[in-house]
């Protein structure tokens, strides 16, 4: 990627057209490349049953395949159809940390994220993805309503 890179924290169809549409607009204006980062929430410190351990490797492969075909694939097609250069990354782990990490790796100039609008107790106590990104993002962050 030689042009400026904008990272989009892409959760799925709910970010479409919202955050994805706005990021596409900005990328078209600035001539930037989009990097869609889709994170599957995962903690290496969670607890699994013996059966889950046995099946984990196979399930992970299926989860990545499904994310690629149902989530990032259609989004990538839409961006490319608009004539904007784009790539996508699928990662496992903490959304906030990995979006920032990918932004750093790609030398991104801006991060776009959708406002989750979550009113849940968990989001209020532990914070939402936009809040987390607002706290640790090393580059300007755009929260799209």
């Amino acid at each position, binding site marked *: 990627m030689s042009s400026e890179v904008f990272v989009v924290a892409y959760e799925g169809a709910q970010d479409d057209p919202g955050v994805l549409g706005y990021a596409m607009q900005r990328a078209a204006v600035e001539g930037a490349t989009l990097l869609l980062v889709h994170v599957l929430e995962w903690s290496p410190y969670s607890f699994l049953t013996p059966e889950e351990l046995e099946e*984990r490797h196979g399930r992970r492969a299926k989860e990545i395949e499904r994310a690629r075909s149902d989530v990032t694939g259609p989004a990538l097609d839409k961006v490319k159809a608009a004539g904007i250069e784009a790539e996508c990354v699928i990662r496992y782990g903490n959304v906030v940390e990995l979006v920032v990490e990918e932004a750093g790796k790609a030398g991104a100039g801006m991060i776009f994220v959708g406002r989750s609008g979550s009113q849940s107790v968990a989001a209020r106590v532990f914070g939402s993805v936009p809040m987390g990104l607002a706290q640790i993002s090393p580059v300007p962050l755009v929260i799209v309503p």
Partner: protein
Amino acid sequence: MSYRKAYLAAPLAALLPVQAAAQGIDETINTIFADYTGWYVSLIFADLPGTNFSWIALWLVVAALVFTFYFGAIQLRGFTHSIALVKGDYSDPDDAGEVSHFQALATALSGTVGLGNIAGVAVAVGIGGPGATFWMIVAGLFGMATKFTECTLGVKYRNEYPDGRVSGGPMYYMTKGFSERGLPGGKIFAILFCIFTILGALGGGNMFQANQAHAQLSGVLGEYPGWITGLLLAGVTFIVIVGGIKSIAQVTEKVVPFMGIFYVIVSVIILLMNFDMIGWAFGQIFMGAFTGLGVLGGFTGALIQGFRRAAFSNEAGIGSAAIAHSAVRTKEPVTEGYVALLEPFIDTVVICTMTALVIVITGVLNIDPETGLYVWNSEAGRISTEGEVAGVELTSAAYARAFSWFPAMLAIAVVLFAFSTMISWSYYGLKAWTYLLGEGAAKETTFKVIFCLFIIIGASANLGPVIDFSDAMLFSMAVVNVIALYFLMPIVKRELESYVSRLRSGEIKRFKS
């Protein structure tokens, strides 16, 4: 019986008309059970000629010592590296989403931490005196090397299927490892191991759990027939393992670690409340380890009980952990060995010692004020205790001295621990079953139904025959497994040396600082 107990026991009163008949069933099961398994139990726990030291205890002690020396005290020099691996310092971020070292350890621990730490320790201290704790800790420390050996092999020789499933365990390293070394008999070892695993799953992994869960529940709710607990536990287990309602197992798997942490916290609080007696308690443990302090059999009585209960609790050498640990995602089998060696440490050195210290400090074991020795109840074959209770009830009584609400909490914990261990062992047993008979829905369901039926038997039988049979089956697994480990330990050494040299040269990267 308190009002609370009476209230809780009210629904059970409706079952009184059938109680007499039910107790008859209990006794019948007990008699049949003792008659049919007694000879095998005697064989496994036979004393060495001219001594009162059972050959099987020596078997495990020698194995743990051999592995400790052969791998240069890996449990000491590799301890900090084990912690780093569990923290994920060496885990490739690209492998996120796969089974982590922590997850494999936690799942293996949920199969081992449980009744062995609560009831088993009480049995050891009740029969072998406080000194049994010392030998339990020693067995736990040496057993770390055994666990390291078996879990490294478990990962190295696991089967990875095209659909992504991973299956491992002693039966795989026995066949593949023996074949790699050009040794005959690997298949025979694997078959024997699987037979004992199935019986061990039905014994220690099932009946002992059901039995102690019933003992604890009847202590809180009042006496009622064991088959009722058995039927309830069997019903829930049936729903999970046959009905495929995995959410129950998933919830248990998540709750059990927190119950374990809670148990340790309560133990630490009790110890802090009796801070001035900790020194005295350790004195009892050290003195008892070499003198017996009035326990029948003295030093050897304490030693045998300590080793027996440690092996039953942390399962080092038994081979079961190798099945759980084998699913981890790693390119280096020896890393899982490092992680697995923490299991006996957490299980035996930390948690079992907590239970033992609380039992000793709270004074539930009766001491003769004149001699300072423990009062021996020759009729029961153990130290006289407050209310003459044993097993999980002794632990409950000890903790109740500090917190009156603890027996109710312990009852919940025991049932959850028992259930979690049953789920783990139903899996280990099933792996052995399918290894012998092949995979297939009908074959798997047959094992699962048998497993559930044994829960009812276990809850109905008395403590003695159940504990003896459970131990005999688990130790039978250890006999076969340890022989295989002796033959295969050069492979582990080769893996270890290669890993350590690459770690030192920086070829193996640390991803987190």
